[in-house]
């Protein structure tokens, strides 16, 4: 993967690689500031328009990306996101993989619970983002980092 550094921890997501899917237009973006989050939203918007996502699905994917990007920035101390277009032949989609080398998530069940936050937020980020996409996976190792994968398929 060009320009993509592998996570510093054991990263064995069950979602990736998506079986039979061709991966196209792989790209990595840094996540180290508020401006990077805005840039990511813009790029995700462009990709979902290119794939002719409906307006609601575009908005859902961008909102989910914004939530997870903020987590990467705020709780993971910054990191990066890899964007990929997926094409299985039967359907097309966008896959976003967020990686940080921050403190990781110790209590996953609690982190996924709506309303729970270890920071000053609303605690809607993880659970909310999961509801907004089709496939969601989170891999974490305390002390090493966290990776979050979001996939949204174009509705036929």
């Amino acid at each position, binding site marked *: 993967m060009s320009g993509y550094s592998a996570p510093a921890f054991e990263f064995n997501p069950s979602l990736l690689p998506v079986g039979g899917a061709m991966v196209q237009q792989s790209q990595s973006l840094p996540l180290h500031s*508020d*401006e990077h*989050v*805005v840039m990511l*939203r*813009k790029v995700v*918007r462009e990709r979902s328009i290119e794939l002719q996502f409906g*307006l*609601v699905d*575009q*908005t*859902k994917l*961008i*909102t989910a990306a*914004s*939530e997870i990007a*903020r987590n990467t920035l705020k709780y993971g101390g910054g990191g990066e996101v890899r964007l990929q277009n997926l094409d299985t032949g039967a359907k097309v989609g966008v896959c976003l993989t967020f990686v940080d080398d921050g403190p990781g998530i110790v209590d996953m069940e609690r982190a996924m619970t*709506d309303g729970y936050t270890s920071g000053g*937020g*609303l605690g*809607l*980020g993880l*659970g*909310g*983002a999961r*509801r*907004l996409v089709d496939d969601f996976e989170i891999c974490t190792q305390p002390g090493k980092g966290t990776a979050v994968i979001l996939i949204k398929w174009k509705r036929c």
Partner: protein
Amino acid sequence: MERIPILRMGKLLLVTIQVDMHDRLAMTLQDDLTDRIVKDEAKGVLIDISALDLVDSFIGRMISNTAAMARVLDASTVVVGMQPAVAITLVELGLTLTGVKTALNVEKGVALLEKSMRR
């Protein structure tokens, strides 16, 4: 520093958000609005988000907090012009903006604020 302009119209403050807001910009707007409510002795705040194609939990919280702060400062807040796709996403995300008054457009929003000011 980048700022979102706040316009005064009588006892009302009008804000139109036309840029993709990063988190610091949202916080600046919240601070600026509370300052202006006091300085201008405003009774109503109208926030037009019709140009916003995304409201995530941070922006949603900024809107809720601004409305709550305005209420404490004796001003009402109305959020107008939310795009349907944004409304669908916001509710699915888990944010319902409880306690925030909304209207479909600026005209209806101003009418709502004027009504609440007459009371």
